[in-house]
């Protein structure tokens, strides 16, 4: 469906709210996309858009997506960290496709994707 007007947006918002009410929950996961100049040049925007899109498609309401700056690992950009409680996993060398798989594997199924991990903190 083409979204051309504020009326279209309003209708989508109301439908989304109805669904959100069915499965109300606090943010369980926090996803941070590193968005320094190095990240942006390496494709962090496309990675973040893919994550947001995947979350919308799956209608996940327990995820907070945010941004941070450069952390000095510019050669491993795009970098994304996923936090749950005290556990923090940093993934590197991502693409939009890998980012979508991360949402499915790490968030939905609770499985860390070992091959893409740069660092883990517990």
């Amino acid at each position, binding site marked *: 469906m083409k979204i051309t007007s504020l009326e279209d947006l309003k209708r989508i918002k109301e439908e989304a709210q109805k669904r959100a009410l069915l499965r109300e929950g606090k943010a369980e996961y926090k996803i941070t996309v590193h968005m320094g100049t190095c990240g942006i040049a390496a494709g962090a*925007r496309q990675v973040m858009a893919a994550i*947001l899109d995947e979350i919308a498609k799956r*209608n996940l309401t327990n995820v907070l997506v945010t941004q941070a700056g450069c952390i000095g690992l510019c050669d491993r950009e795009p970098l994304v960290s996923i936090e749950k409680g005290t556990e923090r996993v940093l993934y590197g060398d991502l693409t939009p496709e890998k980012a979508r798989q991360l949402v499915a594997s790490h968030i939905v199924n609770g499985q860390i994707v070992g091959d893409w991990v740069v660092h883990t903190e517990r």
Partner: protein
Amino acid sequence: MKELSLHVLDLVENALRAGARRITISLLEDSARDLLEMVVEDDGKGMDEKTRQQALNPFFSTKGKKVGLGLPLIAQLSKQCGGSLEIASEEGKGTRVKATFRRSHIDLPPLGNLAETLFVLLASHPEVEFVFSHEVDGRRFSFNSREVFRALGTENPGGNPVLLSALRDWIAYHENTLREGQTDEDYKS
């Protein structure tokens, strides 16, 4: 950077890091003057004169790193494309960065996916007021994020991914039709 819209994102990231609450993004394309102008203005903490003068030095950063490439990259690009970069800043008031380009220059990257740039910004910083305007030969698409949210009856769409995706599609639709010469709309609530 492969797209000008990535430079826009980079400039806005600087503004966010400076603690801005209101960020104005203005793009102007004028065929008659062969001009593309990009302005990002914020109400963040601003820079003192010494910092401002250093801002285009790639080996200078205020973020504890040895390099700071964002502004030098866009300064280089604008110079290469027959334009210039101006930075005006006042401590405690904010910063205004204006980049100009010769619109027909062979080295000018495409504007790219502006809707995606705005999408990631609105999603991660819904509390910031974004004032966006894009003018192409006298036609314009503009909106104020706060007014759009208010018109939709929500304070903060951050927790509503479906609405955020719809917002992206709405912006993309207007950006596309602006290019085709159809859109001329200012959203006011």
